[in-house]
């Protein structure tokens, strides 16, 4: 998903020297034209185009209440996307984001309702549970040397099964009023505070990758594990940290769901938490995070997930049938990867 290769864009691409790195080119194009060619710009353009189409085409899309609900779903989808992104950066994946999320939500519900804990303590404990389950994934992956796909597939089944076994599939519906009030809170009539949580999480993640040595070690380990190991990065440790972070972010997303619905329900993400899988991959893939690892686009994931929530909401407003929405999202994922492929071969054909 990129800005359409306009005439100016193509000319600019040609004017670059064969050197791939911008520092090597003779006349680096100005910062803002380079931005026009990025994935992120393409996503912003698409978000604005669709917003216009939906706002003009349906009466309900731009109503304050719809914008508020859209913001809440968007905030959660962005969090789920981040939760997968931090693992994709290592070149792996985490199928258990949904299962970990549900475990964290149910753990939070249990602590609030059965143990009578204060809200902040329960949230903290639920996030710690998410991080611990994620870290366990990472630990097994590093120790066994097996691919994260099969390990997280197995732990999805274990985590979700244990959660159902321990709670007898019971839901916790007596969530304290403070927490559901946060989910219902509105600023200026249409802004949900949940969106601020996602923005803060995004800023922290961007800071992690850009400013801290740990973030650079994670990127290096994801790009080329053997080379990173030789230059002194403890690759195993970075993988465990990334999976723990993924678990914690899945926990944040799950607690946002609890705040929104006012209940912790085992079925909130479908069987085995599978319903989170598609949003989890849509955000990062649309946002240009490489599945091979080594590159993270926090802004891209944010915008990708935002676009997906916007499209879902808009399609529902157009009444294309709520049951078909999943098919449209699947087509969108397919279209996104195909367009990314086309963009790459277009750029390669131009010798860039």
């Amino acid at each position, binding site marked *: 998903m990129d800005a359409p290769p306009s005439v100016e864009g193509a000319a600019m691409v040609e004017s670059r020297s064969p050197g791939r790195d911008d520092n090597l080119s003779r006349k680096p194009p100005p910062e803002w034209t380079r931005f026009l060619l990025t994935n992120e710009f393409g996503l912003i353009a698409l978000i604005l185009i669709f917003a216009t189409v939906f706002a003009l085409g349906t009466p309900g899309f731009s109503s304050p209440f719809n914008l508020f609900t859209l913001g809440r779903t968007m905030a959660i989808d962005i969090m789920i996307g981040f939760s997968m992104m931090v693992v994709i950066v290592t070149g792996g*994946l985490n199928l258990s984001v949904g299962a970990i999320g549900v475990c964290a939500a149910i753990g939070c519900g249990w602590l609030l309702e059965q143990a009578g804990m204060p809200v902040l303590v329960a949230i903290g404990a639920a996030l710690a549970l998410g991080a611990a389950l994620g870290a366990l994934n990472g630990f*097994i992956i590093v120790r*066994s*040397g*097996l*691919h994260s*796909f*099969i*390990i997280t*597939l*197995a*732990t*999805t*089944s*274990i*985590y*979700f*099964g*244990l959660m*159902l*076994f321990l709670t*007898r*599939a019971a839901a916790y519906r007596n969530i304290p009023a403070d927490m559901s009030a946060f989910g219902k809170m509105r600023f200026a009539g249409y802004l949900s505070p949940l969106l601020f949580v996602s923005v803060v999480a995004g800023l922290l993640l961007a800071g992690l990758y850009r400013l801290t040595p740990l973030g650079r070690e994670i990127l290096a380990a994801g790009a080329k594990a053997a080379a990173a190991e030789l230059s002194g990065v403890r690759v195993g440790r970075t993988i465990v940290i990334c999976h723990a972070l993924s678990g914690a972010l899945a926990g944040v997303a799950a607690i946002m769901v609890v705040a929104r619905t006012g209940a912790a329900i085992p079925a909130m993400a479908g*069987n*085995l938490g*599978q319903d989170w*899988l*598609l949003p989890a*991959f849509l955000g990062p*893939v649309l946002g240009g995070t490489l*599945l091979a690892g080594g590159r993270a686009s926090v802004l891209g994931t944010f915008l990708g997930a935002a676009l997906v929530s916007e499209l879902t909401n808009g399609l529902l407003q157009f009444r294309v*049938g709520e*049951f*078909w*929405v*999943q*098919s*449209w*999202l*699947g*087509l969108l*994922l*397919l279209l996104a*990867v*195909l367009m990314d*492929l086309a963009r790459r071969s277009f750029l390669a054909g131009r010798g860039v």
Partner: protein
Amino acid sequence: MNPLVSRLVRTDWFGPLIVIVLATIIVSLFDPSFLSPFNIQILMLAVAVNCVIAMSQMIIIGIGQMNLAIGAIGGLAAISFAGMMQIWGLPPLLAAAAALALGVVAGLGNGVLISKTGISAFIITLASLSIFKGANLGITRAQPFYGVPDSVKAFGNTTMFGPVPWLALPAALVIAAIWYLLYRQRIGRYILAVGGNQSAAELSGISVSRVVLWAHGVSGFLAALAGVMLVARLQIGDPTIGDEWLILSFAAPVIGGAVLSGGHVSVFGTLFGVVIVAIITQALVIFRIDPFFVQVVLGLLILWAVGVNRLREVRVQRMLKRA
């Protein structure tokens, strides 16, 4: 070591077989009714459907890929099968053939996208999973089709002879056909060659994209067949058919010694993997352990199996080094 024993130990199916024998002995000591004809019939019904599901994934593991969409293809085929009989009044055989054809087309679609674009099978099948699942829900509006003819219901719920259910027949045919395909047909050898080392296979003149198409076509066919069998078994075209296949479809081949990076799968190992899962599920019921615990056991089985496979791999590599 006795040469026969050492040969048996090296096969993929011997370990799972020992586990099956031991588990059967232990469970039937606690509850003799475990070996009653009725219970064996129930076990065989579960094994019949699950082994078709497992074969559908196994063939894709063989080429070193994964197919997340088998449940969605099976579900779509299942509701199409039931829907064509209920709404269009098609005879069961014609409806089944159309549903199986739909499965093949869906599988080929995956195969074309993967081999033409070079995008990872994970992403392509994740996308097609939601396309098919959305189509399923869009067609059924999440309501089952109830108009399944009696002949189909009878096929799914009566026995051929003794405790052997009719559903075991398609399952047995599938096992025989996949065995013949993988070990006696050129395309089967190609499938394993591509899974073992894609560039080497390409260089020795194998058309990788044709092999990928074949594997995904077969996988789609088997997923659809499992869906059709489940309609006969459950007596309704339930839109949730296929939702729970993913974990099992990986567990059974992996227990049967399949290497996830491709090139090595075992038909009988996979079959025995399915049997192990069925016995454990039954044992949990017999010992009155919460049925939710099946999920936990399945996950632990996968971890255990990939661990054992890994150890075997390391041992073989050591033996090769010494030789």
